[in-house]
C-alpha cells in the first residue's frame, strides 16, 4: 500500500545491482577472463560464451533490475518536476520498461 510498495523495490534492485552489475563490470577486466585488453573482452569470442551459460539468466536479471531501478528513479524525478502529470509519467515509464525489457529478453533468448 502507498508509495513504499514501489519505492522498496528501488532499494531491493539496488542491492541486486551491486551483485549483478558488479559481476557484469568485472567481466570486462581482461586479466580475469583471459583477454588481451578491455576491448578484447567485447569480441564475440568472449561475449558469446556468456550467453548460453547460467550467466545469461544473470544478464537477464541485470537487465530487468537495472531497467526498473533506473526508470523508477527517473519516474521519481518526473513526479517531483510536474506532480500534476503523475499518471502520465507512470504510463510513459512503464511503457518504456516493457518495451526495453522485451528487447533484452529477445536478445538473451535468441543467443541462448
Amino acid at each position: 500500500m502507498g508509495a513504499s510498495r514501489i519505492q522498496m523495490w528501488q532499494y531491493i534492485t539496488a542491492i541486486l545491482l551491486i551483485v549483478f552489475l558488479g559481476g557484469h563490470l568485472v567481466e570486462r577486466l581482461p586479466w580475469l577472463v583471459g583477454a588481451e585488453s578491455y576491448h578484447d573482452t567485447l569480441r564475440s569470442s568472449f561475449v558469446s560464451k556468456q550467453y548460453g551459460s547460467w550467466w545469461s539468466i544473470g544478464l537477464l536479471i541485470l537487465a530487468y533490475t537495472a531497467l526498473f531501478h533506473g526508470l523508477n528513479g527517473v519516474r521519481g524525478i518526473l513526479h517531483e518536476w510536474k506532480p500534476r502529470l503523475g499518471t502520465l509519467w507512470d504510463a510513459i515509464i512503464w511503457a518504456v520498461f516493457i518495451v526495453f525489457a522485451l528487447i533484452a529478453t529477445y536478445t538473451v533468448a535468441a543467443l541462448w
Partner: protein
Amino acid sequence: MSKGRAKENRPGLLRASLNPWLVRVEDHPERLAFVLHRVTGVIIIAYLLLHIIVTNTPARAGWEAWDQLMEQFGTNIVNQVGEFIVAGSVLFHGMNGIRLLLAEFFGVCIGRPEKPKPPYIPPTYRACQRQLLYLIFAVWPILWVFAGLLIFGVF
C-alpha cells in the same frame, strides 16, 4: 493588506538538481553527493537504454555485425570519452548508492538522537555516512582513472 500577487520562488528542477551550491553552506558534501547521484543516475539510464538496443545486434544481425560494431566503437574517440563518462558515473553512483542504501533503507550510519550541545553539529554529520562519503570521494578518482586506462586501451 497589499494587493497584487505573491511570487513563486522555487529554483526548479534544473537548478536544484544540477547546482550543489544553490544554498551556500560550507562543509556540506552530502548535497554534492545528491547532485552527483542524480546526474550519474540519469546518465546511466540513458546509457542503459542505448546499451540494450546495441547489445541486441548479435541477435538481430549476427556476431559478425557485432564484431564490426565493436571495432568501430573501440577506435572512435567520441565513443571512448562517452564510455569513460559512463564508467565514472557507474562507479560513483554504485558506491554512493551503498551509502544511501545504508542510510535510507536500513536507517543506519545516520547518527543517533541526542540533546543538542556545543558546538551544535547535528549528529547526522558526525555519523559514519560522512566517513563513507569521504572514502567514496577518495576512491572514486582512483577507480575512474583505472577505468580510463582500460577504456583508452593503455592496458
